[in-house]
C-alpha cells in the first residue's frame, strides 16, 4: 500500500522529467553550449546586437504599457464593484473574467472583426461615406496590440484587486472620512496604500502574461513587431537558426522564472486570492454616484463585449452587410489553393480529439500528483514547486523544446499523434493542480481515516470518498484543461503536423491569407472556438458560484 502511494507521484514526475525537463535542458544546453562545450558567444551576440536589444526593449515596453493601462482601467472597476451594490454587478464580474479562457487567436480575430480593415466599423464607415480605403488603420499598430492585451488582462486584474479590496474593511475608509480625508486625498492616503500588495501582484501577473504574448503580436502586429516569444518562433520557423532561438529562450526563461518567483512570493505574503464572494457595498445614493457606476460599467462592458459580438456578427455577414451562412457552410470544403491542405472543419475535429486526450491525461496525472502532494507521508516538498514549473515556461519555449528534444533518438516523436496532447497537458497541468490540490486539502479532517478504519483500502477510499468530495474541483479542472487545449496556439505551432492543423492554427493560417473567403472562414472558425470556450466558462462559473481559480 505504502509502496503504491509512492508510485503515484512517480508517474507525473517521470512524465514531467521526459516531456518538460528534458526539452528545457535541451534548450539550455543549446543556448549555453551549442557545440557541446561551454560557449557563450550566442548569448553575447544577443547582448551586443542592437536588433535583439530592441526586441527585448519592445517586449518589456509593451508589457509595461499594457500593465499600466490594464491597472488604470481595473482599479476604478474594482472600486465601483466593491463599494456599491447595484443591479448587474454579478454579471459584470463574470463578463470581466470571460476573456481569460478565450484563446489568443479568437481575441485577435475578434479585434480584427471590430476595427480591422475588413472589420465592422470600417465597413460601416466605408459604405456610409463611400470610401475606397478603410478609414481606421489600426492593424499592425501598437495601439491594437495594447487594446487586445487590456481586453485580455482586465478581468485578472479586476478580480484580484476587488477580492483583495473586499477583504479589507471598508470601515478604514469611513474612519478616514470622519478624520477629514476627502476626494483625491482619500485615494492617495488610504485607498491606494491599502491596495498596494494587490496592485503589485496584479501588475506582476499582467506583466507575465503580456511579456510572453505571442498570438496577439503575430496576428495583430504583423512582421513589424516582435516580442522575445515571437522572435524565438521566427528564428526557428523562418530562419532555422536554432542556436539563436535557444539563446533567446534562455533570456525568456530567466525573465519568467524571476517574475513567477516574485508573484508567488507576493501571493503568499499578501494572502491573495481570486475567490470572489460578493463584496458588501452599499446602494448608490447621489446621481453622481449613479453616473459614475453606469459610465464605468458600460464603458468596460462595451469594451469587453464589442469585439466578441463583432466577431460573431462579421462571421455572419458579407462585406456588403448582408446576412450569410456561407462562411460556415464553406468550412466543410477544401478551398482550392488554400493554405490548409484539409477542409477547415477537420481542424475542429482534430482539436476536439486532442482536447479530450489532453483533458484525460492532465486529469489522471493531476490526480496522481495532487493525491501524493496532499498525503502526509506522500511526496517531498519540492515536488509541488516542480509540478508547477510549466507555468513559468512560455508556450513557444515549450514548443521549441519539443522541437529540438523530441525529434531525434532516443525519443523521436516528431510525427507522433501523441505529441500535441502531451504539450497541451503540460500547459494545463499547473491549472489542474491549482484546482484539485486545494480541494483535497480542504476535505473534512479525518474522513479519509474514517473510511480506512471502516475497511476501505487506499484505492477504495479514494474512489468512494475523496473523488466524490472533490468532484466540483475536478469538473472545473476538466473544463480548464479542455478549453486551454482547444485554444493552445504557441506550442501547437511547433508541434502540430502541417497536414493536420488544430483549430487555432487553421484560424491563424486563414487570417494570413488574402481574400474574403479565407477571412470569413477564419472568423467562422473563431466563432465556433469562442462558443466552445464560452460554454466551458459558463460551466466553471456555475460549478463555482462563489469563487473561481483563474490563473
Amino acid at each position, binding site marked *: 500500500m505504502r509502496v503504491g502511494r509512492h508510485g503515484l507521484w512517480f508517474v507525473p514526475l517521470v512524465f514531467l522529467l521526459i516531456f518538460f525537463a528534458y526539452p528545457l535542458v535541451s534548450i539550455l544546453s543549446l543556448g549555453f553550449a551549442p557545440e557541446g562545450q561551454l560557449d557563450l558567444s550566442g548569448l553575447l551576440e544577443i547582448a551586443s546586437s542592437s536588433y535583439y536589444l530592441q526586441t527585448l526593449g519592445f517586449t518589456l515596453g509593451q508589457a509595461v504599457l499594457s500593465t499600466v493601462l490594464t491597472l488604470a482601467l481595473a482599479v476604478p472597476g474594482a472600486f465601483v464593484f466593491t463599494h456599491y451594490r447595484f443591479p448587474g454587478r454579478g454579471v459584470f464580474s463574470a463578463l470581466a473574467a470571460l476573456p481569460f479562457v478565450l484563446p489568443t487567436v479568437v481575441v485577435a480575430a475578434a479585434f480584427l472583426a471590430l476595427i480591422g480593415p475588413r472589420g465592422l466599423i470600417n465597413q460601416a464607415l466605408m459604405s456610409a461615406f463611400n470610401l475606397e480605403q478603410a478609414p481606421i488603420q489600426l492593424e499592425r499598430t501598437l495601439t491594437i496590440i495594447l487594446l487586445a492585451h487590456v481586453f485580455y488582462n482586465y478581468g485578472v486584474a479586476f478580480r484580484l484587486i476587488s477580492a483583495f479590496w473586499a477583504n479589507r474593511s471598508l470601515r478604514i475608509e469611513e474612519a478616514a472620512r470622519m478624520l477629514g480625508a476627502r476626494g483625491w486625498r482619500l485615494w492617495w492616503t488610504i485607498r491606494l496604500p491599502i491596495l498596494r500588495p494587490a496592485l503589485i501582484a496584479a501588475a506582476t501577473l499582467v506583466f507575465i502574461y503580456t511579456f510572453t504574448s505571442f498570438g496577439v503580436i503575430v496576428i495583430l502586429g504583423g512582421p513589424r513587431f516582435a516580442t522575445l516569444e515571437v522572435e524565438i518562433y521566427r528564428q526557428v520557423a523562418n530562419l532555422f537558426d536554432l542556436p539563436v532561438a535557444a539563446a533567446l529562450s534562455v533570456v525568456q526563461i530567466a525573465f519568467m522564472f524571476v517574475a513567477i518567483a516574485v508573484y508567488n512570493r507576493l501571493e503568499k505574503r499578501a494572502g491573495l486570492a481570486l475567490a470572489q464572494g460578493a463584496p458588501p457595498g452599499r446602494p448608490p445614493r447621489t446621481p453622481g454616484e449613479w453616473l459614475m457606476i453606469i459610465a464605468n460599467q458600460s464603458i468596460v462592458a462595451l469594451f469587453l463585449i464589442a469585439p466578441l459580438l463583432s466577431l460573431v456578427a462579421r462571421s455572419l455577414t458579407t462585406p456588403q452587410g448582408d446576412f450569410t451562412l456561407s462562411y460556415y457552410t464553406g468550412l466543410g470544403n477544401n478551398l482550392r489553393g488554400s493554405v490548409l491542405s484539409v477542409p477547415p472543419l477537420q481542424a475542429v475535429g482534430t482539436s476536439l480529439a486532442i482536447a479530450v486526450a489532453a483533458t484525460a491525461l492532465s486529469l489522471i496525472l493531476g490526480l496522481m500528483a495532487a493525491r501524493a502532494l496532499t498525503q502526509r507521508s506522500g511526496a517531498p516538498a519540492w515536488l509541488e514547486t516542480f509540478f508547477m514549473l510549466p507555468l513559468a515556461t512560455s508556450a513557444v519555449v515549450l514548443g521549441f523544446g519539443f522541437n529540438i528534444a523530441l525529434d531525434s533518438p532516443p525519443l523521436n516523436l516528431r510525427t507522433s499523434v501523441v505529441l500535441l496532447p502531451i504539450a497541451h497537458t503540460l500547459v494545463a497541468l499547473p491549472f489542474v493542480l491549482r484546482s484539485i490540490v486545494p480541494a483535497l486539502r480542504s476535505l473534512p*479532517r*479525518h474522513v479519509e*481515516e*474514517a473510511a480506512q*478504519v471502516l475497511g476501505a483500502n487506499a484505492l*477504495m477510499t479514494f474512489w468512494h470518498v475523496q473523488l466524490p468530495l472533490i468532484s466540483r474541483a475536478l469538473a472545473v479542472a476538466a473544463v480548464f484543461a479542455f478549453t486551454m487545449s482547444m485554444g493552445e496556439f504557441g506550442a501547437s505551432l511547433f508541434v502540430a503536423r502541417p497536414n493536420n492543423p488544430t483549430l487555432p492554427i487553421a484560424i491563424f493560417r486563414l487570417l494570413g491569407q488574402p481574400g474574403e473567403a479565407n477571412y470569413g472562414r477564419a472568423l467562422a472558425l473563431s466563432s465556433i472556438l469562442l462558443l466552445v470556450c464560452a460554454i466551458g466558462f459558463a460551466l466553471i462559473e456555475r460549478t463555482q458560484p462563489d469563487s473561481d481559480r483563474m490563473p
Partner: protein
Amino acid sequence: MLSIRSLAFAVGDRTILHDIDLEIDRGEIVALIGPSGSGKSTLLRLIAGLERPTAGDILLDGQSLAGVPPHARNIGLMFQDYALFPHLTVAQNILFGLKMRGTPQADKQERLEELLALVNLRGFERRRVTHLSGGEQQRVALARSLAPQPRLLMLDEPLGALDAALRQRLLSELKTILRSLGLTTLYVTHDQSEAFDIADRIAVINAGKIEQSGTPEAIYKQPRTVFIARFLGFTNILPVERIEGGHAVTALGSYPVEGQPTALLLAPGSITLVNAADATATMRVTDRIFEGETYRLRLNDANGLAFELSMPADDTGKQIEVGETIGLQIDAAKLVELEG
C-alpha cells in the same frame, strides 16, 4: 482481548507516548482519561493503525497488529468530529463499512434496520448527514462504527462536541447501548465524571504515560499521584517537606506514612473545623461561595497553602465570614499518600 505492551510513539525527537501497558478484557469498558495533549487520541490512532508505533506491540485476540493496515483490523473508531461522509446519506454512511466488505444487499438492509432502531434514527435513512443536528450526527457516527461488528470499539471524546444538557442524555443512551451489546470498548475523554459514569475501569494518562489504572472507586479513593488527585478535582493537597523516621513533615505538622509520599491528600472528611485552641492549623477565609446545599470556603495561610472546605449551608456555615481566621484539625488516619 486487547493487550498493549511497552508501546511508544515519537514524532521526530518529540516523544508523544512512552512505555504504555494496558490490558482490556472482552466485554469490558475502559475509559482513558487525561488532559488534552496527554496522548489519549494518539493511543487510539496507534491501535487503529493510523499511526505506527516506534516501539512496543499491540495484540488483539493474542495476535500482533504490527503491519496490519487499518482497513484490515476491524476495529471501530468514532472520531471526535465524527468524520461523517458529507456526500452520503445517513443510510450510506452507516453501511459504508459493510459495502467495503462486499456484504450482500439483503444482509445490509437487515443490519441497517437493526442499527437505526438501536440508535433511534428510524426514518432518517435518506437524510443528508450535513442536515442533521449534532446529537443526530453523533448517533449516525456510532451506528457507522457499530455496523461492521468491530472486535473493539474506540470512542474519541464522543460527547465532546455537544452542549452540556445533550451530553448528559446521550451519555446514558450510549451507556445503555454499549452495555446491551457487551462490546469491548475503549472510551477516551478528558471529563472524569463521564468516565466514572460509563467505565468498568479507568486508566489515567498524563504526558504520554499511564499513571494509574483501576476501577473508578479505587482511583477515587486512592489516587496514586498529585496529578491524578488534582485531575479528579481534589484541592486540599499538602506538600511533604521531608520524611523523618516514618513520618512526613509538612507545614501543618508531621504524620505517619508508609511510603515516600511527596504530598498528602486531605480527602473530604479528613478536615474538621475546631476552636483555634485545639487547631492543628489556622487559615484565613478568602472567599465564600454559595452552592445551594453547601457553602464552599476558600482558605489560605501564611505558607501559601490554599484549601477548600464545604460547609452545610445552614447557620454554622453562614456565621463564617470572609476575612475571618478559623481553626482546622486534620485526621491523620484519612490522609492519602501521593507520589510526584
